[in-house]
């Protein structure tokens, strides 16, 4: 079971690297969906006897629904409406993004070594995976021009935070976790609506066009 959990973490990081490298939006959205599906497996894999089975299944099911089904569907609709297929000429190129991502992953492992987990259950790869995914999300938001990719970066960042939250399923009440998932869904929904307006106003989802306001 531990080997399977470790493989899931490693796969999550490999998907992060793929997202940094890919320019085709279809492939990227599918990769985010797969990452969401993998993350929804994790509560079940990490659960010990101390956790409520109903609670764990609810969290896993909710994460699967929101991260792997609903949000990718919203994103597919957004790119269909805007008729965009690729991210051309990002602010930070694909090869430098990949290299920065790799550096971030290495640093995540280094930092995780300096932050020992104070709880009994030790998952060696959890903190590095979480930090690496947060870093990837930040890179995607900063380095890309298309609004859809920026929303995907936000999603990946939230995925990283979710991974970390798995350590705390014993402490945090269900209400807060449900609130977190709901907030994510509503945030992406609102972003989708704003993207629709951006597309209508500017006839493009390229945020380089959103540069009229300056000091």
């Amino acid at each position, binding site marked *: 079971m531990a080997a399977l959990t470790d493989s899931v973490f490693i796969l999550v990081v490999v998907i992060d690297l793929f997202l940094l490298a890919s320019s085709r939006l279809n492939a990227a959205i599918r990769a985010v969906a797969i990452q969401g599906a993998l993350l929804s497996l994790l509560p079940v894999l990490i659960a010990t006897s101390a956790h409520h089975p109903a609670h764990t299944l609810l969290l896993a099911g909710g994460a699967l629904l929101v991260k792997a089904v609903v949000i990718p569907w919203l994103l597919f609709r957004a790119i269909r409406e805007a008729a965009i297929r690729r991210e051309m000429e990002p602010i930070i190129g694909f090869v430098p993004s990949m290299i920065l991502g790799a550096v971030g992953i290495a640093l995540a492992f280094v930092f995780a070594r*300096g*932050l*020992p*987990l*104070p*709880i*009994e259950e030790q998952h060696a790869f959890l903190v590095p995976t*979480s930090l690496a995914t*947060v870093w990837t*999300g*930040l890179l995607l*938001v900063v380095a890309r021009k298309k*609004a859809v990719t*920026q929303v995907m970066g*936000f999603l990946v*960042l*939230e995925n*990283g*935070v979710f991974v*970390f*939250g798995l*350590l*705390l399923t*014993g*402490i*945090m*009440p269900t209400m*807060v976790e449900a*609130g*977190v998932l709901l*907030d994510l869904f*509503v*945030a992406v929904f*609102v*972003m989708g*609506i*704003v993207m629709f*307006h*951006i597309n209508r*106003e*500017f006839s493009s989802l390229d*945020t380089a066009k*959103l*540069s*009229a*306001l300056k*000091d």
Partner: protein
Amino acid sequence: MLVFIVVVPLCLAALALAIRDNRARPVVLLAGAVLHALGIAALWVRPPDAAAGGYLALDDLGKLALSATTILFLACAVYAQGYLRRRSDHDNRIFVGGLLVLLSAMTAVGLAQHLGVMWVAIELTTLSTAPLIYFNKNARALEAAWKYLLVCSLGIALALLGTFFLALAGASPDGPRSLFLSDLVASGPLLSKAWVRAGFVFLLVGYGTKMGLAPLHSWKPDAYGEAPGILGALLSGGVTTFAFVALSRVQQVCRAAGEDAFARDALVAMGLLSMAVAAVFMVGQRDFKRMLAWSSVEHMGILSVGLGIGGLAASGAFFHSVGNGLTKGVLFLSAGNIHRAFGSKRVEDVRGAARLLPLSGPLFLAGFLAITGTPPFSPFFSEFMIVNGAFGDGRFVVAGLFLLFLAVIFVGMGATVLKLVQGDPSAPRQPDTQDTWLSAGPPLALLLLVLLLGLFLPREVARLFASAAALVVGS
């Protein structure tokens, strides 16, 4: 009662979204503001017990933030009656609904005793206000709304990670294993120091983004510049105050865990940086609403410096948060009036506002004097307390820089404001934009309150500031 003041605005928001008539919705907004204010007044009269299983409770910090914000919201709701009637061509369903949800979310932040609930409420303030920035429905408003939404959501996501770090700090078998503020503070020394420090960093970045501290302030000029006046007042006077409350709660936990020194140094550094950045960009600003945004960055810096120094300066910071909230109301509402009357927000297009709008023009000038710390308005006394606290603590460099930035900002902002207000009107007034009681009354009332707080601060209220400071940073 606590649950009442959180839930009632939500129900009224649902009502507002359901009503079809554009002219009936502002009344719902006013009803919500009045009910909320009455609820807060009841809390002053009879202190309530904790509610909702301990997730909501009223302490001194929440009390002062909620009181200031409910007065601000009431003023804005009265202003909205006239404003929405003038803008009756726009559908105000989302506007009214969003404002009421914002009120509920802000109340929840003030009352929250659980860091997770507090986070959810702050996220709700972002989500409920982002669509409202787009009220004017032009390309620049859309750009501002997108930047606001993305940057603040990023910050909030990082704040969630920080909250998780704090929860993990307490997750060892002999730790508190909860995110309740009281539990975390009570078992402070048992928390894992490394995780508390890491958590503080992420929470400072996250809630600092919401406050608009430099270098996380990039959304502020755009958002405040393009939003309608009411929204600007509530964002800069209400939401940032509650983000400051959230940061203070985090500081409470840090102090209990013994990571105080690190946290306070970080707060002072970011505060001074914000003031410096605001000073640089305030000079020669060409859009007076963006100028108010930079003023907001400056004042969040002042609050951060006060909290970081602690003691008397922290009491001054909490006093300042109240004064700042009310004065921002004066500034944004009167700026909105001026914008509407001249048809432009650019400084080069506006001259002689005092002559054209006999109430809003002088109010804008008075608001400028208040916010830059001119006696006898209350911000003077609160900033004086902060500087006093800094000198008393031996932080001469900090106090010196503080005063220097205040001076630069006074000169920079003053040049712009005096240019706007004095002289002969540069253009005839746009039709139907004269000062009425609904449009100029609320900012006037807020200004009188700021003056009153400066001249005759009731001892009860002064004691409230000191006890809030004691709660957060110790006496």
